[in-house]
Structures are given as C-alpha cells and as structure tokens.
C-alpha cells in the first residue's frame, strides 16, 4: 500500500464508521471519532462499559491522522514560517507571566487534545484499522440495486441468492506464501464461479430489499454450498506445484534422522529408568518441535462471506 492508497483507505473507513472529519488535506485528516470507531480504536473498554452502564453521553476522542508524513511536515513547516513572519510583537506581558508560572500554554486551555498518529504501512494504528475492518466486515447480506429504469408496477424481476466467500490460502512449512481466492455459488442452481468478488465490485449493492423483485428459492443449504466451494478449491489447489512441500518434507526427514542418530545411542546408554524416561521425553519433544517447524501443509480460512442477491436466474 502506498501513501495514496492508505489515504483512501482511511477516508473510507472514517466515512463508513460515521466519524466527523474536521479538516483534511491529501496528507492528513483531523477527525472526531464516532462512538463505533472509538470503541474499535482507542482501547478504552472501561470507559465504554461505564458509558454503557450509566448511559452517560460518550465523549469520543479526536485524532490527527497523518497519511503522508513528509508532505504533511513540509506543509506545516511552511505554514509556521508564514505565521512567524506575521507575528512580530513579543507575546503580551500577561501571557508571559502566566507562562512563567504554568509553563508554556498552548492556545486556549480548553483546546481538544488531538494526538498525532502517523499512518504508514506497518504502523500500529493502520494495523489496528486492518484488524477493525476484518472483524467488523465479516458477514453481509446484500441485494443488487435494480436498473434505474422504472419497472412496470406489476412486473417482478427474478433474483438469485448467492453464497460468496473470500478465502485466504496459506502454503506453509517453516516458510509461508499466501493467495486470495473468491468463490461464489448460486444457492438456486449450484453454479460455482471463481473471482466472485470482482463481479460484485462491478455492481451496486444495497442492504435494503428492492421493490418489485422476487427471489428464487434456494435448493442448497449453506453447508452444502460451502462444501461444494471447498471441493472446487481443492480441485484447483491439486493442480499446483508442490516442489516446496517436497523440499520441506525432505528437510523434515533429514532432521528427524539427525536427532534419531543423536538420541538413540543416548537412550540405549541410559544408566537407569529415570534417565531413560527423561531422554525419551526429550527426544519426543524434539521430534514434535521439528514436525511443528517443518511439516508442509496448506490452510484455507475465510476472510469474510455473505449472501448476495443478484438479478437474473443463474
């Protein structure tokens, strides 16, 4: 993700969660969080449980989110310079006196605290946004918005319910590689397609049931449909290159053999029961560790999924 993509991402998050954007430029946002976003981002579970129990009016936090450090700092420096050239008179006597007794006072005492957060790829705050959207965007139920032409009041458009799921596939041994797969399956007919998510992005979707449509009856249960997606994925994955797994398996065998050569004479030469047991246990532990480290495996887990009602019968 580059700065621009991050900026866009943050903007969409703030809008989606209903945060109040007080000020923005291509390199920053000043924002007052919505209660929903505050709960996700500020890590104040006690405060929020207090609000929930007492019904007190919540006071959400404000942040300065900087999405392009260099640009923002340059702009700030320039602005400061400009301001500097205007202010020539030294600060008033009263302020100076106050400053002496209270230390430097910035602006008004009531100014909202606005901590600055730099959002760059890899920063904690951005990771947290990622976490937040992952847990907050898991299950949806949506309808395709009908074409804008006025339909005949008595004419009803048929819709098909689809199960769509985005899957992260991991190829793992002591190393790891990942892929994203998106499948959709028509619950009416059992037609299964790849890259379903891309198809969705081309459509306009709404959570509200549109007028004048009727939905085809599902002939598949979710579990059945998910099973079919699984099979489809499995078929696809079978055609992959597994030389990485062969290499890992060979390494695994090597390592197991190496510790076997080490431990077996030790176990044979144990002086008493106790020592025998201890070494055997240690050997078993080592074997487990090595398997844990090197066993090749492929994992598949859903990122998110939903029921998508699309126009037409498929």
């Amino acid at each position: 993700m580059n700065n621009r993509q991050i900026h866009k991402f943050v903007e969409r998050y703030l809008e989606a969660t209903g945060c109040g954007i007080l000020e923005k430029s291509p390199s920053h946002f000043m924002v007052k969080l919505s209660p929903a976003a505050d709960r996700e981002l500020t890590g104040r579970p006690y405060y929020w449980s207090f609000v929930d129990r007492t019904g007190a009016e919540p006071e959400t936090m404000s942040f300065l989110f900087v999405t392009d450090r260099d640009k923002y700092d340059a702009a700030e420096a320039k602005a400061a310079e400009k301001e500097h050239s205007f202010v020539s008179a030294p600060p008033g006597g009263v302020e100076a006196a106050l400053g002496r007794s209270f230390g430097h006072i910035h602006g008004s005492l009531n100014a909202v605290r606005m901590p600055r957060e730099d959002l760059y790829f890899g920063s904690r705050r951005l990771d947290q946004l990622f976490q937040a959207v992952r847990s907050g965007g898991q299950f949806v139920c949506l309808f395709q918005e009908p074409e804008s032409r006025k339909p005949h009041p008595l004419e009803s458009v048929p819709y098909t319910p689809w199960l769509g799921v985005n899957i992260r596939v991991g190829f793992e041994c002591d190393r790891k590689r990942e892929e994203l797969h998106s499948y959709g399956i028509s619950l009416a007919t059992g037609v299964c397609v790849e890259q379903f998510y891309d198809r969705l992005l081309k459509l306009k979707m709404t959570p509200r049931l549109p007028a004048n449509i009727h939905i085809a009856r599902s002939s598949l249960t979710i579990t059945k449909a998910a099973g079919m997606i699984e099979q489809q994925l499995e078929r696809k994955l079978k055609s992959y290159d597994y030389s990485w797994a062969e290499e890992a398996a060979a390494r695994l065998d090597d390592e197991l053999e190496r510790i076997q050569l080490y431990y077996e004479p030790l176990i044979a030469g144990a002086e008493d029961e106790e020592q025998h047991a201890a070494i055997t246990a240690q050997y078993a532990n080592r074997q487990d560790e090595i398997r844990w480290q090197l066993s090749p495996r492929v994992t598949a887990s859903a990122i998110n999924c939903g029921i998508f009602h699309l126009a037409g019968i498929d």
Partner: protein
Amino acid sequence: MQRPLNSTEQPGTETTGKKLHPNASLYMDRSWHEELNDRIQRNGPWDDWSIFQLAVEASQATLVTSFEELQCLRVLPAFEPMEHQVGTARKVLHEMGGRAILADEVGLGKTIEAGLVLKEYMVRGLVRKALILVPASLVLQWVRELNSKFGISAVAQKKEHTWQYDVVVASMDTAKRDPHRSILLDQDYDMLIIDEAHKLKNRKTTNYQFVGKLRKKYCLLLTATPVQNNMDELYNLITLLKPGQLGGQSDFSANYVVDKRIPKNEDRLQEALSQVMIRNRRGDGGIHFTKRIVKNIIVELSEEEQELYHAVTAFVKERYDESGGDMTSMLSLVTLQREVCSSRDAVFITLVNMFKKMPEESPMRAKVWELVEVIRKIKANSKAEKALELIRSIDDKVILFTEYRATQEHLLQFFKSHDLTAVPYRGGMNRGKKDWMMDLFKGRAQVLIATEAGGEGINLQFCHHMINFDLPWNPMRVEQRIGRVHRLGQKNDVKIYNLCTKGTIEEHIVSLLHEKINLFELVIGELDHILERFEKEELPLEQRLAKLMLESSGEAELQSELETLGSSLNRLRSEAGSSPEHGAPLSALLDNLGDSVEVRP
C-alpha cells in the same frame, strides 16, 4: 472466522486434512458456516458493505505473496537495516529454517538481525508468541528496540500475568525460577530468542537445562563469543539448538577435536557449523570506526585549591581510620575527595548535606565548617578556566561531561559569564526537555554539558570533541560517554580531552585508565571482556579503587598499589585480546561463517 485457523498451531490439532499432494494436506477452516447460518436464521445482524470491502483490501495488502521476498522491509520505514543484517536475516529464514546462532562480532547489530527475523515471521503469521530471554540489564533496551525500530509490541516481564502477552522480554534469571519456570514450560513458543547465549555453554547448568526444556518452533541464540575457552562450549550451544548437528558428544570429540581449542577435519566442521551459525565480523581492510585521539591536559591547582584538596583528603582519611575500615559508609567520603578535583561547588553541596545530617552536638560539624571556610578562600576554578581556554581553541561543537550536578551548574554560569553558549543535559530531564536541549546543541549552542551518558537518544555524531571534565571511576561509564560520540555515523576522528588535576587522585586514575587499560583506544566491546574477567576475581573496579585510596598510608604506597592493579588489568587485557579466536585455527574457522563487513561511518 472470529479466530482464523491458527497457522502457528501444530499440525494435527486441526480437524480435517485432505491430501493435495503426497507431502501436503489441506486444512479447511469451517467455523464460518455456523456463524453465517446463525445470522441467516436471526436475519442479522449484518455487517456494512464498505467495511466488508475494506476487510478484503486489508487482507490483500497484507498478503504474503512470496516465499522469499522479505516482507518486513516494507513495514519498517523508520529505519534502514544494513546490508549484512538483511543478508543474515535472509539466510536464517531461507536456509536455516529459523534455527540459528547469530555470532556476529560486537557492534554489528545482532539485535537488529534477530528483530528482522522475528518481524518477518510475525508478518507472515508464522510467529505470534515469542519469548526473549536476555540479561536483566538488557531487558528494557530490547523492549525499546523492538517497539521503536520494529513496531513489535514487546513487553518487559514484570508480574506473573505478563507471560500472557504475545511477545515478552524477560531476564533468564527470572524465567528459570518458579513460579515462572513452570508457566513457561507449559507454553508453546513460536519463537525463542536468547541474547548473550554464551552463558549457556555448560550443559550442567540450570540455564542450559531450562532452555532445553522450553518448547519452541524457531530459535535464535545470540552471542559474540561462541567459544571462550574450549570447543565443548560450541558443541553444547549447537546441541541445544539442533541436537545431532555435530553428532553425539563422543563423535564430536573423535571427529573434530584435537585439543580443547584446536579443531580437526576443519572443512567438515565448518560445513556443519555453517548450517546453524552465522558470524559476520568487522572487515580487516576498511575503516571500521574513525580514530580516537586522546589528550590528557594537566591542570595546575591554585594554592587555595591545593589547600582544599589536602584538607579534604585528611578529613576523609581521618573518618576512615575512625570507622575502623568500614567501607559502606565511606563511599560518600570518597566522593567528596573526587569532587574536589571537579569544582568547589560540588564539594560545598556535599559538605552542606553532610552538615545537615549530623546531630547538632556532633564535633564533626566544626570540622566540616572548617572545610567550608577553606572553600570560601577559593576565588577561581583553575579547571573551569582551562576548559574555557580549551573550548575556545577548539572552536567547534564540544560535549563536556561531568559527574556532578553542582559542577554542571557552575560551568553553565561560568561559561555564560564569558559569552560562551552552553546547554545542560541530565538524567532527570524528561524526554521533551532532553530533545529540546539536543536541538539547541545542534543549533546555536557550542557546548553541551552533560551529567549522564547513558540512555537512548543521545546520539551526537555531529560532534567530535569531548571533554572529560572529571572521570568516573567505572570504566564502563567512561566508555559509555565516548560511545555517545564515537559511533556509527561519526565522520571525523574523535578527540577526547581528559582534564586532570596535578598531584591528586585524579592524576592516578587517568594514568590507570589511559596507560594501563588503554581504555580510550580499546575496540568496542573489548572492555566488557576485561571487566568481566576482572570482576570474577575482584570487587568492581570503582570499589577497588576507593578501598585502595582509603587504605594506603601515603603517596608512595598508593602509587605502588595502583601499579599492581594496573598491571593486573593489563594482564587481563592481553588475555582478553588473545584468548578469543585471534589467529587460532578455530577462530579462522569461525570467521568463515559469515561476511566481513566494512562498517563505514
């Protein structure tokens, strides 16, 4: 889906596995079926479509698309690791399967290498739980580095419940004791990192056995000295990491060892070692660091100052004899004597504090007062004048270190009255103020007067003149001072000026540190070894010096005692210099396990 199938769990704990290939099975996470069904039954609640899309984008952005490419480099915009560090991380990840001994020479950044490896595994989702065991004195430093450089939320172990955190840094001594020990042995650690791992060279120790019992997937052992005394240490270390890598103990002795420090079958041994160990070392030809140029500047005390010095010395000696040789209460007295060599202000403050603490009827009060009277007579500070003269002649940024707050204040005043801009720096300042002082020093102030050399963030590569207004008796602290200026990034030779008052204890100390240990010109890291050895046999050097000074009956005796101390340090130094791997066949072999790094400033 709440908790995606945890890739860091051991295979076998997952429920279904379908063969995709003779060597690889597919494990499907099905937890989402139920949740989706559930929501359909209850008709919601449904998540927001835009958030759903953002979730997909977040997953795309964090996807690990290749086995090889280091992902962590994308997420570390805050600093740039050096080439050999990245190379080492790559090797550990791709060739060693995450189990390695990092044995770079001191100063090449083993911590950075370990951090890179850890971060990479974390980014790839292969490590979630990591345990880092280090000497107690390094815990906070590790936590800071991991947090600031790598954005890894590491916590320092404080209480029992701290162990629940994902990345914990703890001291070995704590970890191996109950109740902690049993908690740790009950966990599966995706990664274990042990700093100063040469302390695990003896397989009979509890440390060694404890580490052997910890369950871990990946493991890094960090040490600059994989072999200190004999090759068995190396064997033990490697066996801890990968049992059998060098065969059984008897195979090892038979195959590889001629004598405790002399290997045989070097090629095979090297081959075996290179699979588990990386050792980068400083290049031989290139410039490692710029030079340190030391100059001792003798200051002649004025008559009044002389008088004070003698008066204080007599006072201190008297107290010591009275106390019957009790050292504990004497250290403050020794301080007094050292302060005389720094400034009258420092002595004065200490005397006033002593005076306040004494009971009113104490006869000592009168004696203290006498000393104060002597102070009163002193009109000028010869050392401060010398310093001023020196700074003017340098005509460049200078950092001046003193041990005492009072001296610091005095110098600030004194310099100010001579139109020399100086700013203070001390441990008690908060972060913001420290940064501010640093900025001022970078900007218009010519001099920084510091009482503390430790702590992060005081990196003064832009300055290459330092004055030791007075010297700590603990050589590590002297080294720390120098290290602030003389570090990677310093482009000039560093000039070190030691101000030392003639005819005082200070003169002896300077000569001991400079001529005997050659402290100022030691290779970085060498001092650790010398002191470690010294303190095995003796009290810490500081205390040893204080004792020496109090107990000697006269100048001549002091002189000869210091001479003895000096030569024993000198001996340790030559041992330290020769014993780890200089020129030995073993060292040549170890040195082939990595690259020679030209650390250019």
